[in-house]
């Protein structure tokens, strides 16, 4: 039985982008796993969400595009499509989705 974790599926993601993203998850205290897969951010996010034990997945692609997705919302527009500069904020918010607390806003 795998432990609860947010899954991050990345495809040749820029290192700094991934570091900031996982920093957001770590700061919120939510466990996560990073795995390498192929594809664009949106599809990576869908796959990760489906495989995640907490129903939250994040996809990061080589262009630095990041998507968060919830397993129960697949097939619809991804939750939070972002660019690399907001990687940290997205990490925080993906964690907050898993935990069930209100999301951080961009200005903060």
């Amino acid at each position, binding site marked *: 039985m795998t432990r609860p974790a947010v899954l991050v599926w990345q495809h040749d993601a820029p290192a700094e982008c991934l570091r900031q993203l996982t*920093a957001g998850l*770590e*700061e*919120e*205290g939510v466990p996560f796993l990073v795995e390498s897969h192929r594809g664009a951010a949106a599809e990576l996010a869908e796959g990760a969400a489906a495989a995640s034990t907490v129903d939250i997945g994040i996809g990061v692609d080589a262009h630095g595009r990041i998507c968060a997705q*919830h397993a*129960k*919302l697949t097939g*619809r527009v991804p*939750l*939070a499509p972002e660019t690399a500069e907001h990687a940290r904020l997205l990490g*925080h918010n993906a964690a*907050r*989705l898993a935990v*069930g*607390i*209100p*999301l951080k806003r961009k200005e903060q």
Partner: protein
Amino acid sequence: MLVVGVDIGNSTTEACVAELGTGPAVYLGSALARTTGVKGTTENVHGAERAIRAALTEAGRGMDELATVLVNEATPVISGLAMETITETIITESTMIGHNPDTPGGAGLGVGTCVAFAELPGRVAGEEVVCVIGTGVDFEDAAAGINAATARGVVVTAAVVCADDANLIVNRLGRPVPVVDEVTLIERVPLGMRAAVEVAEPGRTIRTLSNSYGIATVFELDAERTRMIAPVARALVGNRSAVVVRTPAGDVTDRRIPAGSLTLHGERGRRTVGIAEGAEAVMATVRGIAPVIDAHGEPGTHAGGMISQVRDTMSELTASPVDEVRIRDVLAVDTFVPQRMTGGLAGEFALENAVALAAMVRTSQGPMALLAEELRRALGVEVRVGGVEADMAVLGALTTPGTDRPLAVLDLGGGSTDAALAAGQVHSVHLAGAGDLVTKLIDAELGLDDTELAEQLKQHPLAKAESFFQLRMEDGTVRFRDEPLPTECFARVVVLGEHGFLPVPTSHPVEKIRNVRRSAKHRVFVVNAVRALERIAPGGDLRGLGFVVVLGGSALDFEIPDMIAEALAPYGIVCGTGNVRASQGPRNAVATGLVTAHAARPAEAAR
């Protein structure tokens, strides 16, 4: 003969169309429109016309068939609201950080001298240090720097960080220490001063820095200095994390702000009361001096400014000299308001005592003749000023099934709460404090700074968005959604507003927000309902009232009428929301009354 009764109220203008003949009046249609301009002025014509036309449309009749328009004697009511904060928490020399960030790191108490991160390499072994990490320092570098210093023998007991990085840093330290983060004004942390940093385990609160003696122990304070530090401890109660920096020259002080005084004039003299004494003291003075003939606030205070403005507006409206305008009623309500603490390092808020004041002025002079003439010109129909509003309200209220004289009417409006008793003569009273004050209290106590949201929160129930598809209502039941909620609503308390869900931007749970809403309604409307009825009841005894009918816009509220009925239950009176003509609810009472009164005039009806 076709007539229309028009009631011009402070916020709403209501109309009802009726056919008068030999038998009882036949009501054909009703409508309402927003009142245009201040009630009792010629600007009201637009709103009145709109309401009349809408009522005629519902009745299926034309303006050309209308014989008479009956208008109430709309006397202008000007009301004002002011909030006086009577305490203020000031931090001087930045001695405290109490903003309680979401994700502090480590646990325990760390005491040391504040040292900037860049200066860490210069410290020697054995020194006890609280590391202050400013903007632009990456969390990996911060952890590495602290570990390096520790390896050299420097005792880093805690850290204070600008960014939201506490856990990231603690997770990379060789030995975890308490770390407080999200300190926005990090550059104001006084370096070189002794500081204590405390973080509690998740789900717990701090024990040392929220205790005056705890702070005294850490900083070896004598009794006198402990007394001065007590407000700091008080401000930190309930926090999961806190920082206290010992600065020699300054401390947190809370002081009572001079909120000024209120002077109330009665028939036999006048009394002055300091607003800082609280609402109870103010209302006791109002009761003692009743009936209030006039009121003045101290110049330069919010209350003073508000009362002057109310007076000026009325003076302008009725073209009478300022000193002839009389404030007839004042309502004071105690409240708590979250205010930003001056000198806080991280945007801290403290709950400060405040007093909300409502004042009201009413006059019997209004340009009614002018208004009637304007309306006649706009419609091409005869317009008659029908009668005193209170009398008409009672006549309309009596069309509620199950009512009989003696009947008292309680009109819950936006700017004033009015009551009238029909027992032979009609005796009426008008009090300050109504719907608008409730909204202001909700807005202030939740720190919303958003009147529209406060208004929606007042009128509609709450729910907590437990997931994207699930809302738990305030009564505990669950509602499911087909479409996911927007992300701004996720995990938030939302108002089920008329145009969709409105997230409430506070971290309070549903119960707390619900209590604020209900308490605001209680402190204004239940208090004023009892006050108003006491004034009109024979001998001031509510038991003498037979039937009480609640009317007005605020009578449509989902909680207020029940609260009032519950408060009046011990007096053995029948109290409930009106149902004018068994179909209009608490609306249209005065308009209906105008028609009823007109139909009862034998000579007129024949014309």
